């Protein structure tokens, strides 16, 4: 990881931990209560044993009763505390997911230029879910690892200052030792990091490509290579673990040393009393010693918890890097503008000297385009592949903005409009419409959720969806999309057309809508599209001659000029 990345990670972590720490506060407080109860329990135990030892008599039952009650409370406290930690993790993840959703929606379709949709989905789901450990375990542990031992220490100090001193010294040595070994582990892991990541992902990668491997008769060789890689991974991982385990051994050492020292020193103490002739049985120190001994595990438990949660922290780094890609450019949040529902009248679209290039260092896709499309006109965008037909459609969609020049809707510059406002003017049909998981009806109503049955029926008829409706097991209520009934490309395109009918927007943008269809299906689709185009302002790009025949004027991107009439 480079220095820049580390800074980035640190910043992100700081930014995330503020609210997350507040959310973790109840869990930390409950942990404190738990420690106080544990102190009480230890005191009860010590007092009971002391009484038996001193009087050689049966202890009264009340301390045992108190001990039992404290245990019950502690058990309850544990349940509530774990739930509180889980809730903190859930709240933090939910908050984070909302902010990522905000960015994704704010950046909008432009994001798909930079990232694969699978990556975006992984960012929304897995990258955030994996942070559960960070929010629910690491944060509370990191907030309480000083506080809780101090509570135990204070209690021990009150009764047994000597033991408290021993524990304090041993406890303080743990972070020091951990820092030393931790740095070692970090150094070791930095050298191994890239190699390990490659080796770890190798398995997933090979399983994904298993068809390719099997069909190339390479499965035997690949299995051997996989085995070698796993062995290599093990050796590298163990190199790191060898150092990392030293840091947890530090806790063991400190704990054992503390126990032995307490027993030894307090033993002396008792001996001295004995030799000076004072009755051992009367000394109060036995209780104090027992009390200290019983609290030793409690004292070290938070340190152990921190060490266990340490690996959860590493996930934050990965998430930070992934989320960083989203930081820039979210200009629109999930706020919904009011008044978006009212219908919009006919629109004339004007291009005024539009130029565009994807990046500063790349050549212009096109320069100084001028065109006007009035209602009822169909503008065919012409040009070789890569001449920027799709780019022009995306500009009109408002997904991107021209580098210079203006796009005017009824004389209004679209740059002054928000993306969602631009979207109200238009319906768009691309090469491959996305079908969402859900019923066909839900997929159609996506364009206008408040449409009534009549409007829906009209759209279904106009887009000729009724032609394949009988083939679907449950008609309009058939599940389609991811995991549902598979629609063919032509059928999916009809869904897109029906959506456009439902939306009933004055501007229709068609980006190679028949590019992936066979000729017969294309013919049918064009029929429906022609019907849809009637009376609207249409901009269309297509290679298909039949499609282009619909046009009333042509814009040639290679020449940057509009020619009238049929192309």
């Amino acid at each position, binding site marked *: 990881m480079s220095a820049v990345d580390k800074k980035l990670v640190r910043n992100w972590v700081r930014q995330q931990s503020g609210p997350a720490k507040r959310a973790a506060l109840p869990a930390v407080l409950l942990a404190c209560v738990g420690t106080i109860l544990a102190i009480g329990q230890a005191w009860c135990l010590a007092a009971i*044993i002391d009484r038996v030892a001193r009087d050689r008599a049966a202890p009264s039952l009340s301390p045992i009763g108190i001990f039992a009650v404290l*245990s019950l409370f502690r058990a309850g406290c544990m*349940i509530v505390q774990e739930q509180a930690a889980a809730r903190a993790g859930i709240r933090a993840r939910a908050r984070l997911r909302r902010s990522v959703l905000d960015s994704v929606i704010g950046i909008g379709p432009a994001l798909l230029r930079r990232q694969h949709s699978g990556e975006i989905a992984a960012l929304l789901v897995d990258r955030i*879910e994996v942070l559960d450990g960070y929010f629910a375990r690491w944060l509370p542990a990191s907030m309480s690892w000083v506080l809780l031992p101090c509570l135990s220490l204070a209690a021990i100090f009150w009764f047994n200052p000597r033991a408290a001193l021993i524990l304090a010294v041993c406890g303080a040595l743990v972070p020091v030792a951990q820092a030393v070994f931790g740095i070692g582990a970090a150094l070791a892991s930095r050298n191994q990091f890239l190699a390990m990541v490659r080796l770890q992902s190798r398995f997933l990668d090979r399983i*994904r490509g298993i068809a390719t491997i099997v069909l190339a008769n390479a499965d035997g060789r690949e299995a051997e290579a996989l085995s070698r890689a796993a062995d290599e991974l093990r050796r590298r991982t163990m190199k790191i673990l060898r150092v990392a385990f030293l840091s947890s051994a530090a806790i063991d050492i400190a704990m054992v040393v503390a126990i032995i020292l307490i027993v030894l020193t307090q033993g002396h103490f008792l001996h001295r009393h004995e030799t000076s002739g004072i009755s051992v049985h009367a000394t109060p120190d036995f209780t104090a010693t027992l009390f200290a001994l019983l609290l030793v595990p409690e004292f070290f438990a938070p340190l152990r918890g921190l060490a266990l949660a340490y690996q959860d922290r590493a996930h934050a780094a990965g998430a930070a890097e992934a989320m960083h890609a989203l930081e820039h450019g979210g200009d629109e949040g999930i706020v919904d503008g009011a008044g978006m529902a009212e219908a919009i009248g006919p629109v004339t679209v004007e291009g005024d000297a539009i130029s565009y290039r994807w990046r500063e260092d790349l050549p212009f896709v096109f320069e100084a385009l001028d065109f006007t499309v009035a209602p009822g006109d169909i503008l065919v965008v012409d040009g070789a592949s*890569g001449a920027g037909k799709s780019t022009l459609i995306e500009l009109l969609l408002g*997904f991107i903005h021209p580098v210079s020049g203006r796009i005017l809707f009824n004389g209004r510059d679209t740059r002054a409009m928000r993306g969602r406002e631009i979207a109200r003017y238009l319906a768009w049909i691309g090469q491959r419409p996305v079908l969402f998981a859900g019923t066909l009806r839900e997929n159609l109503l996506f364009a206008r959720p408040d449409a009534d049955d009549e409007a829906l029926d009209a759209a279904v008829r106009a887009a000729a969806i009724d032609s394949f409706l009988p083939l679907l097991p449950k008609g309009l209520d058939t599940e389609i999309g991811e995991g549902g009934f598979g629609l063919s490309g032509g059928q999916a395109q009809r869904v897109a057309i029906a*959506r456009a009918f439902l939306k009933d927007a004055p501007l229709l943008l068609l980006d190679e809508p028949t590019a992936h*269809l066979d000729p017969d299906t294309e013919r049918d689709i064009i029929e429906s599209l022609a019907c849809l185009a009637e009376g609207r302002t249409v901009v269309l790009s297509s290679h298909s001659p039949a499609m282009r025949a619909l046009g009333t004027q042509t814009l040639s991107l290679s020449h940057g000029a509009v020619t009238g009439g049929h192309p």
Partner: protein
Amino acid sequence: MMSEHSPTRTEPDRVHRTLEALRMIVTVWRPYYGRLGFGLLLSALALLSGFALMWNAGASVSALALGAGTSFGLLRVFGGARIVLRYAERLFAHDAMFRALAALRVWFFRRLAQGAAAGLGFRRAGDLLNRLVGDVELLDNLYLRIAVPFLAALISLPVLVIVAGLADWRLGLALGGLFLAAACLLPLLSALRSSGLSHTVLHAESALRVAALDLATGLREARAFSGELRLAGRIIEDETRLHEAQLQRNRAMAVSGALSYLCGQTALVILLLAMAGLGGLNLPLLSGVGLVFLTGTVFEGVSALARTGVLAGQVGLAARRITETSGERMDESGEGQCRPPETGDIVFNDVTFRWAAPDPVPGEDMVEGADRMAIARPPVLDRLDLTIHAGDHVALIGPSGVGKSSLAALLLKVAQPESGEISFGGHDIRTLDTAQLRGRIGWLSQTTHLFADTIRNNLTLGRGNIAEDRLWDVLEQAEIAEVVQELPDGLDSWVGEGGTRLSGGQGRRIALARTLLLDAPVMLLDEPATGLDSATERAFLHTLNRVMRGRTVILIAHRLTGAEKLDRAWRLEAGRTVPLPL
């Protein structure tokens, strides 16, 4: 949209299948029994030294309190032993586990490769494969988090019972009973109780994933139709459902943990009562204090087991899915030994085929993903006849889902026809050696995978005996040699995951070069250019025309671009071929 978890399988059946799966996995670990066992032994010794330390500490202090002399030497020995043993145990157990996991992965890979995996690849069940890999990773927990603590419990039990029993046999019985409850009964109960919870969490997770993917792929639609809020709303809804399920599972874990803790505390109370001489029990002070310390340590050692019980449901599910999915084997009747001819006509004679309706995720009651529609599929090929002459360039056209890829799967013997016969150069392919047949047929498709590896390894796929010149030759033919030359590391440049450091067209050309390296007389091109933008697609098809001269070419596509040079073409309709005029 997701069907609720329906208990179609009975509980005993599930338990039985889980045990069967676990047995199989433990068998895979056989070569590592020694190491795994040694790890367990070390962990047991570390545990015992821990007990000895705490018991000794308590006893020493009490002895002092009573004025009896005691030796502190033992304390130091136990303390030192505990530290060293703990460290050694961690190292050894982890090392052994990594070895065992590596073996498990290789075993899984081999089984998958021999089984129906290639078929899965054809059906683009990438998500299913991802999940299976996750399952293999989940099995990490089996040894370290389940086997090791369970052994600890097995060792702790006799220690506790004997030490307590020496004082009073009734005490031994009582503590032993409580310990069994904490170490065995509670984990078992929570495992049984939470197996349903694991399902709920899994389902909620996959629903969330679908919703997120919908938003990500549908960003354009969402903007164009102002549907962002609705899609985001669905994500948040699914997230809430998932988090509720997680919270429920967490509660189950917390309650189990607390109950296990209470068992330990009850044991302590019984000890205290015994020391007080109640219930006719009489516990001497010395062993009493030692026992108090010992009991605390012993019960703490198994406190994690109750929680692990919740996890066990998930691990069991993972084990089932892995063993059962990778166990789907091909029909062995199609395994022949004959050497296929160099080349020849390919004839499909009266072939009927349908994808089987498998339970794609064994162990799950719900059928998910793209496989849901696999149930009760109609035949994709219905008594199909087709002859492809050697050397011809032919195309099979049709919308997706009509069975074009099934043809490829049948020819490559990834699937078997229900009836009918396929022959290559006059031999029924069932009689031909599968590996050699696949050596005759080069396969290039949009799903051809580019591995996260160097370009060289992507080309050779592990064959070490290929001359460098030959590699450059095929790169040249695929018209990608220049690009590779300009890369800083040349042939040894790393291709990112899924080939992401190359553009779509470049990646496809590398895949083409790999196919060319096989130098197969027959080329099966399954939508080779799909997913590329139209300019790149055209250029790629031109390259294909050039390099395919002199071979039999079967092009499978949903449409023709006009850039293909063909001798014949058919449209696939209702499971049969219809000749297309060219």
